[in-house]
C-alpha cells in the first residue's frame, strides 16, 4: 500500500502550515542581524544570551511559572473531587456542577478578564496583581482539568472498587488502593494541560497585570510593541522546545486522548 493511501496529502499540507509559524520563529531566533527576518542571514546565538540576560524576561518567566503552578494546584483541587462526584454519583444539582464548570469556557475570555478586573479593583480592595491572575487562570484551567479527569474516570470500572469492598476493604482503603492509583494518568494529564493553559494565557493576564509584574506572554507582547529584534524569537524558541517536551509527556500519559474524547478546548 502506498503512503498516500495511508495518509491524506491534504493533512500533511495542513499539518505543515500549522507547524510552520513555530519553525519560522526558531529560524528567526538564530538570525545574527537586528531584525526579525526569515530565513535568517546566518547563525548566531546572541539573541538567546540577550533574552536570558534580560531581567524583565527572567522575572516574567519566573512569575509565569509560579502563577501556572498555583493555578494548576487550584484546578486539580477543585476538579478531582468534582469529577468523582460527576462520574460516580447521581445527585440533584449534577447539571449545575456541569454548567458552572463549563461556563468559563463558553464565555469570551475578554469578559472574564474584565469581570475579574472590576471585581478585584472595585468590589474588593485587593487590586490587580498576581493573586487575581492565579484565580483567573484557575477559572479556565478547572473545566479543562475536569474534562480530562471525567474522561479518565469513565474508563475506570467502578466494579473494581466494589470488589475490594466486598472482599473486606473499608471504603476509604478501597478508594485509595484501587481507584486513586488508576486516576493518576488523568491527574497528570489534567495538571499538565491546566499548567500550560495558564502559562500561555494572555487574555486574562492582560487585564490583571500590574506595571511591575508582567507574565511572560504579556512581557513579550509589550516588548514587540516597541522593538522588533529577535530577542522575543529566542525566548519563544526556548518555549517551543518546552512545549514539545510537554507534548511528548502529555501524549505518553494519554492526556491528549482524554482531551480528544472530552471534546477539549
Amino acid at each position, binding site marked *: 500500500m502506498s*503512503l498516500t493511501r*495511508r*495518509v*491524506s496529502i491534504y493533512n*500533511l499540507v*495542513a*499539518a505543515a502550515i*500549522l*507547524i510552520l*509559524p*513555530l519553525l*519560522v*520563529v526558531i529560524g*528567526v531566533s538564530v538570525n545574527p542581524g537586528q531584525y*526579525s527576518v*526569515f530565513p535568517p542571514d546566518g547563525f548566531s546565538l546572541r539573541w538567546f544570551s540577550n533574552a536570558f540576560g534580560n531581567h524583565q524576561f527572567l522575572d516574567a518567566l519566573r512569575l509565569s511559572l509560579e502563577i501556572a503552578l498555583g493555578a494548576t494546584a*487550584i484546578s486539580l483541587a477543585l476538579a478531582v*473531587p*468534582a469529577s*468523582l*462526584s460527576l462520574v460516580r454519583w447521581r*445527585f440533584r*444539582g*449534577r447539571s*449545575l*456542577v456541569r454548567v*458552572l*464548570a463549563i*461556563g*468559563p469556557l*463558553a*464565555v*469570551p*475570555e*475578554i*469578559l472574564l478578564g*474584565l*469581570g*475579574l478586573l*472590576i*471585581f478585584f479593583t472595585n468590589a474588593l480592595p485587593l487590586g490587580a496583581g498576581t493573586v487575581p491572575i492565579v*484565580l483567573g487562570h484557575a*477559572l479556565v484551567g*478547572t473545566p479543562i482539568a475536569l474534562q480530562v479527569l471525567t474522561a479518565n474516570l469513565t474508563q475506570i470500572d467502578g466494579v473494581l472498587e466494589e470488589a475490594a469492598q466486598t472482599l473486606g476493604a473499608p471504603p476509604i482503603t478501597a478508594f485509595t488502593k484501587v481507584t486513586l492509583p488508576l486516576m493518576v494518568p488523568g491527574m497528570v494529564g489534567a495538571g499538565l494541560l491546566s499548567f500550560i493553559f495558564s502559562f*500561555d*494565557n494572555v*487574555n486574562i493576564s*492582560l487585564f490583571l497585570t500590574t506595571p511591575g509584574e508582567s507574565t*511572560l*506572554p504579556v512581557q*513579550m*507582547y509589550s516588548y514587540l510593541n516597541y522593538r522588533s529584534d529577535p530577542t*522575543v524569537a529566542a525566548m519563544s524558541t526556548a518555549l*517551543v522546545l518546552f512545549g514539545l517536551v510537554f507534548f511528548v509527556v502529555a*501524549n505518553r500519559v494519554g492526556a491528549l486522548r482524554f*482531551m*480528544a474524547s*472530552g*471534546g*477539549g478546548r
Partner: protein
Amino acid sequence: MLGLPLVLYAAVLFLVPLAIVIRASLSDPNVFGISGLTWVNYSNFLTHAYYWQVLLRTLLIAVVSVAATALLAVPYAYGLARRPALRQLQLLALFAPLLVNQVVRIFGLQILINSVNRGLGGLGLPKLPLTYNIAAVVLGELIFLFPYMAVSVFASLSRLDVTVEEAAATLGAPRRAIVWHVILPACRPGIAAGSVLTFASASGAYLVPQMMGGGKVTTVPVLIYNDVTQGGTFGSGAAAAVILMLVVIPAMLYSSTRAAR
C-alpha cells in the same frame, strides 16, 4: 458533596464578576469606579454608527473564521480518522501550536507572511493582501481555531464505524452521496460543538485582531480593552461587553441545542 468547592469557586469568581460587569455597564461613564445608575452607556453605543460598525465587524470576523475553520478542519479530521499513518505528526500539528502562547504564534505567522511577500515581490508577483487588515485577522483566527475544531470533529467522527461507509459503497452509493448522507451527518455534533467553542473564542479575541490588524482593525474586545486600560472608567467598556454577550450567547445556545440533537 464533592462538587461543592467547584460550585462555590465558580459562583464567586465567575458569576459574581459577570454580575459586576452588568452592574458596571449601568454606571456613570464620567465618574471613576462604579457609581450612579444610567442607560447612557448603552444608548451611547447603540446610537453611534461607529459602534455598530465595530460590532458588525466583530461578528463578521467571527462567523467567517468559524465557517472557514469548519470547512478546512472537517477533511483534516476525516483524514486523521481514516488514514492514520504518521498519526503522531498529524496530532502534533494539532496540539503543539496550542502549547505555545498566542503572542509567539502570531509573531511567527506575521514573519512568515512577510517572507512570502518578499519572495513574491522578488519574482515580480503581487503580494498577498494579508498585512494589517480583516483578511489577516481571519487568517490568524483560522490558524488558532483549527485545532479545536479538528479535535471536536475527530471526536464525533471516531464514533462512525468504517463499515457503515463500506456498506453504503457496496450498496452502490456514489462517493458524493456517502459524504453527504453518511460522513457529514456523523460530523455534525462535532462541528456544532466545535463552533460553540471557536465562536466564543473568535468573538472574544483581543490579541489576534490587535496584532494581525496592526491596530487598524477595531473589534469589540479591542474597544473594551482600550477603553478600560486607557480611560480608567468601566462603564462604556462594560456595556460593550454586555452587548457582545447578548449577541454571542444566544448564537451559541442555538448551536449547542443543534449539537444535542
